[in-house]
């Protein structure tokens, strides 16, 4: 009797869960639902951001000005950002600073809603290429507001490596065995593909994010040879900072943020963009389709688009603003920084960087010959073991 009751209970529980799960929705991009004006703030704003993207020095003044208290959640990878924005059915976070390899997934998954750029006064001052780039704009709707952009760099310890490496080959060089660190991120495959596109033209790689199966295999083979040389695949920027500080790594793929932080700490490091060029990021602020703090979100987007905040962010992280007017503010805060981060020649600089985007099965030519991001993720697990 007792056993049978347990069995009933278990079956009941399983049925209940199956029912709860069977309500499903087909994802499609969210339709516009623009506010007429930016109204009174809701008092809070939950954001998902890259480390270094929501520092007190510009968040505190915003909170004081608008009364919107900013709750910050830092993510270590684009995948994590996508997962956080989808968590609990979406709506737990209002804004995300998504890079180009996350933005399309969020749009097509119906996780973010179009933004009315008329409510963002500084939008008119943006770099023309970043007003409606394909990674955040679909069918003329702005699902993302461009923020900052820049290249992924090669960072090295200047005490151990006197001369700046000229090629990404340094990351595959056995002489640095056990001293190399690279991000724990499937998009890292594109870095290997970019290197191969220059060193092995027979593979015919034209876009590091559009790889046929043979091209992907070649990149994976290169990365598998690199794996025994790697000290650690870093998950958070702070991990890489610690690795360089403690002497565990002397060379690695990095963001300018780590170089700046380590330099500020007195560590002897420098970074460089090798001859092959670099992959990079173009980030957009994206608004959750189920945001509960739309007014605060618009206030925030308008605020971070102003030249002052854009300049502060750019200098802190080591990247280039989307707002062309930020040049003066940058030079005021750090003379020469506008030219250092190429905001003065943004139009040519932007063409040298291969911005992150989501690898898809359908290549740009419309043929289904390319490998999808899911495949990249599986390959990445194989690479790091």
């Amino acid at each position: 009797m007792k056993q049978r009751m347990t069995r009933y209970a278990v079956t009941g529980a399983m049925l209940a869960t199956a029912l709860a799960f069977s309500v499903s929705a087909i994802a499609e991009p969210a339709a516009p639902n623009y506010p007429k004006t930016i109204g009174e703030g809701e008092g809070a704003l939950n954001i998902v951001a890259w480390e270094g993207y929501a520092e007190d020095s510009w968040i505190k003044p915003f909170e004081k000005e608008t009364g919107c208290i900013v709750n910050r959640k830092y993510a270590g990878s684009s995948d994590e950002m996508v997962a956080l924005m989808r968590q609990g059915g979406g709506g737990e976070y209002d804004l995300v600073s998504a890079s180009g390899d996350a933005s399309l997934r969020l749009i097509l998954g119906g996780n973010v809603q179009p933004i009315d750029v008329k409510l963002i006064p500084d939008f008119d001052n943006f770099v023309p290429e970043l007003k409606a780039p394909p990674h955040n704009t679909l069918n003329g709707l702005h699902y993302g507001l461009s923020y900052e952009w820049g290249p992924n760099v090669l960072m090295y310890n200047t005490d151990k490596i006197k001369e700046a490496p000229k090629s990404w080959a340094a990351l595959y060089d056995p002489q640095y065995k056990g001293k190399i660190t690279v991000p724990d991120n499937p998009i890292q495959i594109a870095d290997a593909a970019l290197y191969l596109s220059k060193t092995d033209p027979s593979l015919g790689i034209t876009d590091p994010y559009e790889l046929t199966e043979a091209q992907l295999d070649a990149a994976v083979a290169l990365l598998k040879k690199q794996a025994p040389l790697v000290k650690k695949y870093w998950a958070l920027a702070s991990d890489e900072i610690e690795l360089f500080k403690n002497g565990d790594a002397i060379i690695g793929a990095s963001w300018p943020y780590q170089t700046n932080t380590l330099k500020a700490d007195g560590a002897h490091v420098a970074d460089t963009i090798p001859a092959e060029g670099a992959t990079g990021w173009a980030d957009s602020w994206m608004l959750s389709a189920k945001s509960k703090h739309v007014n605060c979100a618009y206030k925030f987007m308008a605020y971070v688009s102003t030249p002052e905040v854009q300049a502060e962010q750019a200098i802190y992280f080591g990247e280039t603003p989307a707002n062309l007017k930020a040049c003066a503010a940058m030079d005021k805060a750090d003379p020469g920084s506008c030219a250092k981060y190429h905001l003065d020649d943004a139009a040519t600089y932007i063409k040298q960087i291969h911005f992150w985007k989501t690898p898809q099965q359908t290549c740009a030519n419309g043929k289904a010959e390319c490998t999808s991001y899911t495949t990249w993720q599986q390959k990445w697990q194989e690479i790091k073991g």
Partner: protein
Amino acid sequence: MISYLQETFDKAVGRVAYQSRRLSAGLWRRPAVSAGLLLTPPLGWFIFIYLAALAALFISAFWTVDSFTGEINRHWTLTNFHAILTSDIYRRIAVRTILMAAAVTLTDVLLAFPFAYFMVRLAGPRQRIVLFTLVLVPLWSSYLARVYAWRLIFAHNGALNWVLRHLGFEGLEIGYTNWAMWIVFSYIWLPFMIMPIYSAIERIPYSLFEASQDLGAKAWRTFFKVILPLAMPGVIAGSLFTFSLTLGDYITPVLVGGPGSDFIGNVVYANVGIANNIPFAAAYASIPLIVMAAYLAFAKRTGAFDVM
């Protein structure tokens, strides 16, 4: 006025007391009802929160996920299990996790047994209190703090290498390797091995030691023929903790592991939190469940549950 209030209050109390007496008498006459009332909250929790979560896990393991939009596709399929069984990397990660759990368990048995034996047989009451405190104090500090501490110890310019270099040795490159994970796991779970072995040895009557000696057995023979068999359930009980805790961990591999250190838990975490492929994570998570079920069945046969 006050006396009126007092009177009303007393009446009310009297009514409540009467009602509750009636209720308890009623329950006393119907034991099934009182048992039902007592058991409903824990049983409800167990079924709807604990078992339902497991059921949801198993159900979703048979689903797939749309790679681009991240929506769950609810068609029944064995794709996930097929992918796990046919892929070298997922097999390697499962084997690595299980072997590490076994190595950590063995290490902890070897470290904990002499320690527990000393605490029971040789230490005085005051020494015993000091030793107990030493075993338990690390458990009061955060797990994360202790793992981070080890990371600093093992770093290239860390405490360990500082000592080694001052002693005239070469520094060790032990940080971010599987060796580092083995040491950290063995350290972190050691108290969970010491306590059950301690209570198992404590239960062995002292007369058995004397009898063994009186019959002419040497110390090592007493150990292998008397102490070890009687303490074995304690060892198994401890190993249940160390084995399952290692098997389910994913933070230590992230913090002190290097390339080729991913555990089952890391794959599950990557698929839930990063790749958003919950069905695959659910399928992979069933491996430790199966391993632990087998291990528990084995432990039950040895009588380990009697000392827990």
